[in-house]
């Protein structure tokens, strides 16, 4: 079980219709690759975030598969076009079965 896993998200509060906005996300996570050994030579079990998704009003914006080579505290920055007011939902899936979520509302004026 990874400790101190905290998702962080930045989405603009408002936008104009059809505007391309920048979304930044970061989750603090050790991303243990499963390839390293501890002091006694035993393999440290893999523990990573293996999937990240972002949806807008239920529609998929991105859906990412993460592999063990991705480093600690994975950071994603991407663009999305917002046609209307709504809610971005962010979900991170951990190897240990834990699911971390965050959501942000955006107003299109």
């Amino acid at each position, binding site marked *: 079980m990874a400790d101190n896993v*905290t998702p962080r998200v930045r989405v603009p509060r408002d936008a104009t219709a059809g505007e391309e906005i920048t979304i930044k996300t970061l989750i*603090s996570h050790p991303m243990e690759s499963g390839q390293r050994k501890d002091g006694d030579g035993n393999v440290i079990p893999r523990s990573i975030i293996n999937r990240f998704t972002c949806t807008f009003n239920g529609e998929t914006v991105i859906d990412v598969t993460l592999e063990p080579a991705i480093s600690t505290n994975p950071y994603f920055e991407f663009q999305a076009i917002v046609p209307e007011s709504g809610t971005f939902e962010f979900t991170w899936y951990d190897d240990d079965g834990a699911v971390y979520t965050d959501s942000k509302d955006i107003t299109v004026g």
Partner: protein
Amino acid sequence: MKSLFKGGIAAVAILSAFAANADEEADLVINEEIEITVRTDAPAHVENLSTIYSGWVFRSTETQALQMDDFENPGMIFVDDAIAAWNTVEGTEGQSCAACHGAPEEMAGVRAVYPKWNDEAEEVRTIAMQVNGCRTEQMGADEWKYDGNEMLNMEALLASVSRGIPVNVAIDGPVQAMWEKGRELYYTRFGQLDLSCANCHEDNYGNNIRADHLSQGQINAFPTYRLKNAKLNGVQGRFRGCIRDTRAETFAVGSEEFIALELYVASRGNGLSVEGPSVRN
């Protein structure tokens, strides 16, 4: 072919000159909200400088940008860890930091005056010593390692709530003897390379020492997230690194010599803003 080759060299030279020159005129505003003083008149007790500069001024544009937004600043992840520790009850007394001090924001301004004299203990205390004092005396908890992760995280939290507040370390009264000792150390040459702090950070700031752009060695921005080791670094750990680079036997982190040096170097930055956790290379 020959002329092409020359052109290639010239282009490389221009690129590297560009990369080495940081934007020394830039101003630092964090989150478009907190204004940071990165250059100001030197305090009267710093005889050999007229203007003091934060180390931020000497870094590349990209590194500077990382510190202008908390989302981009990797040091802020450790601040979040420290907020969890702040609210955690530990030790025999059933206390947390929050039980006495309230929210971390209540500690605004504290980082700016450390190291300072502690009347009860009759010693100069760095902020790390004060945190451990709280842990052992008030909480009945174990001490944290002087520059261990928990301590550096907590120092980062205490610095983050004081950002924008000018450093104002007292140098007279009961701390004067330690301050004089720190000053002595600052101007003492150490190691096979026979270098004092002043040789680099007073005589040669702004110049390059091989690929590194020398700053004034100010510590207003500590703890600092260094891109080279991807973690928070404390003041005294940095002192150790500097002295090691002169090929000397270094003092220990937490030693009286380093406490004195930290007090003196902190006072050289009186007037600059607290800006930790900062981002450096």
